[in-house]
């Protein structure tokens, strides 16, 4: 979790808003540092992690459920399945909809009967959605899957969603464009990490654009978009205003 990013987003793990969808998008750079931020942000928010964030412990406690997409994709061809497999659509010639995948997600998010609640509110993190497109699913089918996840996670369970979509920047890739724009319109917050237009730089790794959408109360003064540059370090990321990298000042 990057404290500086929390400051920019004006949030902390214990007072994070609920029922929100955040879109992480990367173009010409690797946005996975944003995924790591949100993963540790939400795990910290669960309040039971004492020293740092231990993903293995979280997984054992049932707080973290992984669907290893690529591994399951291979399983679906080599195992006989009685129940519908989450990635069932891969076996069907006509990859219609992602209903089995959605049902897997919904099952995973059900609170365990008896015992203590696994979490205060659930968080669904998708890394990354573009993989579904490359597995042959249509953009509208993926958007429908996200819609149903949003209805269950954000609205019904008052949880949050964080989705990573790559922006290939390829003008020919209409499906990815529709997917990216469709999810953008469903999002409350968009974080877009872009490589610098001028190329690679040692001191400035990229630019982060933060766009707030869908405020619950429209504000008369719409101050909804901010742009910062960043540098990724060993254990943290530092952010600064454009042109204000410590290396050049």
């Amino acid at each position: 979790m990057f404290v500086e990013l929390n400051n920019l987003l004006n949030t902390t793990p214990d007072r994070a808003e609920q029922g929100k969808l955040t879109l992480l998008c990367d173009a010409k750079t690797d946005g996975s540092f944003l995924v790591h931020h949100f993963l540790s942000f939400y795990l910290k928010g669960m309040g039971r992690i004492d020293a740092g964030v231990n993903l293995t412990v979280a997984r054992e406690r049932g707080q973290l459920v992984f669907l290893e997409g690529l591994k399951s994709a291979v399983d679906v061809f080599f195992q006989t399945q009685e129940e519908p497999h989450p990635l069932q659509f891969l076996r069907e010639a006509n990859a219609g909809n992602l209903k089995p995948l959605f049902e897997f997600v919904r099952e995973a998010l059900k609170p365990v009967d008896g015992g203590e609640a696994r979490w205060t509110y659930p968080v669904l993190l998708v890394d990354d959605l573009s993989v579904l497109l490359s597995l042959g699913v249509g953009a509208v089918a993926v958007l429908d899957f996200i819609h149903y996840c949003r209805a269950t996670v954000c609205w019904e369970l008052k949880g949050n969603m964080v989705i990573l979509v790559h922006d290939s920047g390829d003008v020919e890739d209409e499906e990815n464009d529709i997917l990216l724009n469709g999810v953008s319109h469903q999002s409350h917050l968009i974080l877009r990490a872009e490589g610098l237009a001028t190329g690679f730089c040692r001191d400035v790794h990229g630019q982060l654009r933060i766009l707030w959408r869908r405020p619950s109360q429209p504000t008369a003064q719409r101050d909804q978009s901010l742009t910062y540059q960043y540098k990724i370090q060993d254990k943290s990321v530092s952010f600064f205003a454009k042109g204000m990298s410590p290396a050049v000042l």
Partner: protein
Amino acid sequence: GRELGMLDSLLSLGGLVLLWDSVEWEGRSLLKALVKKSALCGEQVHILGCEVSEEEFREGFDSDINNRLVYHDFFRDPLNWSKTEEALPGGPLGALRAICKRTDPGPVTIALDSLSWLLLHLPCTTLCQALHAVSHQDSCPGDSSPVGKVSVLGLLHEELHGPGPVGALSSLAQTEVTLGGTKGQASAHILCRRPRQRPTDQTQWFSILPDFSLDLQEGPSVESQPCSDPHIPPVDPTTHLTFNLHLSKKEREARDSLILPFQFSSEKQQALLRPRPGQATSHIFYEPDAYDDLDQEDPDDDLDI
């Protein structure tokens, strides 16, 4: 008082109104503001809600507005994945047709949130036919009971659709509003097409207040306009040219007194009617070649003029 802008009176003329938004400039706030306006005018308002929950849509409206809104929920289970009996029969288009079969003769506003969702999930032709039937209801004499004006307000996300469907919808619409803005100030570009009239367009700056009333503005406030750096003086591009852009006084006078060759003045007329003696007349010299058939007779001789 100030004259009502076009944004205020968008729905009063009826028909199909398209509201185009983008990722950068979201349109649901304006949609809600227009819905509120209709409700305050005493109209019945129906929302086909495909993108947000009913709670989220109703948030920010006070109870007298909410009492006038009928929310048709296509958010919770639009594709009937839960396979319960609760699914609304006929889907969104069925709901649309049911609204129009109403017996209440008052004016009605139907808000489609969003028309993009419908366009992504239904064939374009079916959707266009349904929209045409709904928004042109007054002119369709099929039903004997008189029905009031129907306004259909459709929210569209411009990045999601290709030029074909966009063109089809535009041709059906009486009014198109495109959202944009600059530096924190939103604007609406309104294009109005009325039958037998020239299309009119106007750009209206606005903001939406927390209670979803519409606040019309003159333009972006001075502070938010991009200002040029006062330290850099504006550059005059006409300095240091290799050609002359200016005329001297003598050159200007000569230019002004020039008579253009095809301008027919009275002097020119007189000169043509009375050729001056000694003026060279023009000759045509023609060298016939071997294949020419020269006939000295005047071909017009047999004309009786």
